[in-house]
């Protein structure tokens, strides 16, 4: 599903973050990536999403090198095959929950009749006409999860999805995320600092300045 081949990346000021990074993630796997601050976890997610380009090396999604795609093709790939969950939720404040969740469907030109069901799945039944300002942080992240999965993406990228939530809500959200990813048969990458969060993934990868290494999973279902 996802292949990282000798990926290198340095910031504009010259600081190197990713060095000869290689790894292969199979379809349906759900991996957590941990690492120190500034080691390049978010940068790695941006590279996988095609939002940034590696200095050298290649990232392939189902055999297609992302760097070989032009901006429109990369955008289409994200639109059809990717789901995103962010630490800061990033929901559009002037759209209702229904509209926020329907965004990927609209962009893909597919029917939006799944929205109500998805909203119910994340525990927000009958709240589709509410606006984001009427929701708590945990509820907002539920909306973000629903939006990330509504179009049944093949790869879900989650960047510190529980970083702004209290432990109980975070646990609830992580369980929900895992359940939804698995239900949809997607592949997932969860970037986190939290061992508890990482434990909800199938396995954990540790990102260091030398590369990406598997560590023993602490997941307890």
């Amino acid at each position, binding site marked *: 599903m996802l292949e990282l081949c000798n990926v290198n990346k340095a910031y504009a000021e010259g600081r190197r973050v990713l060095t000869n990074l290689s790894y292969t993630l199979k379809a349906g796997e759900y991996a957590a990536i941990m690492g120190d601050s500034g080691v390049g976890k978010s940068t790695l997610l941006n590279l996988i999403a095609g939002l940034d380009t590696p200095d050298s090396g290649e990232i392939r999604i189902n055999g297609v090198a992302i760097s070989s795609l032009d901006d429109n093709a990369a955008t289409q790939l994200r639109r059809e095959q990717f789901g*995103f969950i962010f630490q800061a939720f*990033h929901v559009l404040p*002037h759209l209702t929950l229904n509209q926020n969740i329907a965004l990927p469907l*609209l962009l893909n030109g597919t029917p939006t009749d799944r929205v109500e069901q998805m909203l119910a799945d994340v525990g927000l039944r009958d709240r589709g006409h509410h606006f984001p300002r009427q929701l708590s942080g945990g509820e907002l992240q539920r909306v973000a999860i629903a939006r990330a999965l509504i179009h049944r993406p093949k790869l879900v990228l989650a960047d510190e999805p529980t970083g702004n939530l209290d432990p109980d809500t975070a646990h609830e959200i992580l369980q929900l995320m895992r359940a939804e990813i698995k239900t949809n048969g997607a592949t997932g990458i969860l970037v986190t600092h939290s061992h508890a969060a990482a434990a909800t993934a199938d396995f954990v990868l540790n990102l260091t300045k030398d590369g990406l290494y598997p560590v023993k999973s602490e997941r307890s279902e």
Partner: protein
Amino acid sequence: MNSVSLSRWLLFGEWRAHFVQMSVALIAIAIGVAMAFSIHLINTAAFNEFSAASKSLSGQSDLQVYGRKAFFDESLYPLLANTEGVALANPVLELDVVVPGKLQNRNDHKLKIIGIDMFRAVQISPDLLGLTEEGKTLDRLADDAIFLSPAAMEWLQVKQGDSLSLHVRLQTITLRVAGGLVRARAGQRIAVMDIGVAQWRFQQLGLLSRVELKLQDGVNHAAFKVKLAEQLGESYRVVEAIDQEKRIANMSRAYRVNLNMLALVALFTGTFLVFSTQVLSVIRRRQQFALLRVLGFTRQQLLRQIITEGMILGVIGSLLGLGLGYAIAVMAIQLLGGDLGANFFPGVKPGVYFDLLTALTFFLVGLVVTMLGSVAPALEAVRAKPAMALRSGSEDVAMAKFLPPWFAVICVSVALLFTQLPPIFGLPVFGYLAIALLLIGGIALMPRFAAWTFSRLLTQLQHYRLGAVLTLVLARLANAPNQAAIALGGILASFSLMVAMAIMVTSFRISIDGWLEQVLPADLYVRAAAIGDQGGFQSDAQRAIAGLPGFDRVDFFRTQQLILDVNRPEITLFARPVDRTDARNTLPLTDDMIASGSLPENVMPIWVSEAMVDLYGYRVGDKVNLPVSGTSNEFLVAGVWRDYGRQFGAVQMQLADYQRLTGDLSVNTVALWLQTGMTADAAIANCGTAVWRRVGDLPVE
């Protein structure tokens, strides 16, 4: 459901959340379009009505023959009537006569009287025939009859059978209102008399204003016009209706251009408001747009989304502007007249006509300038890297791209260059562009100005206990100056235009005051109720006035209108005593002049206004010909003077030269200097002479 739905959601979501900002932008666009559209409607309506009114006076004639001066000898008429190719010649005497009861309005106290030959007018301009009472057809030839248009009757508050008093030189004559006219345009204030009666009653025996010619079928008008002009020589001009229209257009050109520039200023301010609204809107939604890009919005879709927002603003604002502009035009014409009080088209009552093509043009102008205000923010938004833009704190960096310093430097440099360029077709196009560029350059410099000013302020004040709020405010302004610059730019745009207007008006008023003191140095001026160009005061009246008690000095002026170019309005000729030792003692001369001592003995000097330099290319030292005496006379341009009063050009010459050339000793203006201790009222009251009693009825400035 599709991307159109998404676009609609995003659009209405944003507008719902920022209704006030959107409303202000809409109002700004609407005001800009409304001003431009209303000014155009008013100008067009007034111009068309004035042209139509002029055409109605000249009837169905093919050509018209005028003198270079207001009147010419009627002996030309039989010559023209017998010219081969002429089917009909119609002599006309046209006079602007002072109405005694209307003197309180200096710009609107004259009635246009047209003397026509009824037997010829019936074939060439039947609309001008008088409507007599039943059985009184011969009233059209009666020696006391005058026929008035409905607007003239209303203005003069008279009806058929009433008496009407009019000033003729130093006398007052009374005529009988014999009826109305066959047809006159709404608001057209004219009177018609038999030409012979008009010549007699208004003391213009043997004189005509013009002869209208109807050519025989098959005669080539253009060729005939050229041939006739050659035959008649330079004392006469032969014109077609189109020449008249050009003259009318030229008469109000500067006024129309300046009003249109005012409208453009409003539109520019509207554009800037749209630009700043869109910039702030895009910056505020930077993370939202980045999210959309991450989720699968292409750059093209995002660009389309932002430009569509601007386009919808432009469409709504422009439509509102068209409606508002039409309403303003209708109201302005009703309240102020077609020239907004400028008196270019006196008495004209135009109707506003909604022309779809014109409306579409102004709609597109409003739409395009609004979309221009959206393009820069839209381009910045699509160029932004989503991963970077998703993080907060990048707003000020993004805004810096809108107003780069090099752009400001280029704008200001080009503006300075433009100030040195000449006009195009007589219009200061580069001057207007320079103002716009200076304004844009100034706005683009605002971030640097804000950063520099607030940084220094913060440094200077840091030793004092400022308090948290003030420190935070100053720190934000100093370190994130681009957001402050947008607000500062709006203030700069509106405030600088306001200050510029105030400075312009104030300096103009000061200049006018100084100029008036120089050109009108006397304490009292008496202007005769002249008919056309005929002087009001003959020699005996002048002697009587010169002998009046209470005055130190009395000067006599003679003014008349001259046509130098058939496409331009008349220029004004002033004949007056000019100080021979130094003309600057009499005229407000610029530095461009020949010293009086250096003037050759055998030439007649003239001093031309700056408008003559611009419009006719007169230069100091040039020898030019003017038709002062009916035929052409050579003069030396001895200097240039500043004239705020006559934008179409004016020439000053020695009164003695004028009288020698024309043999006309009459004058129409008297300047009087009061003796010390004497007041104007006392001087007038002390005068018991018959001349003064008569002069006292006339307009005294």
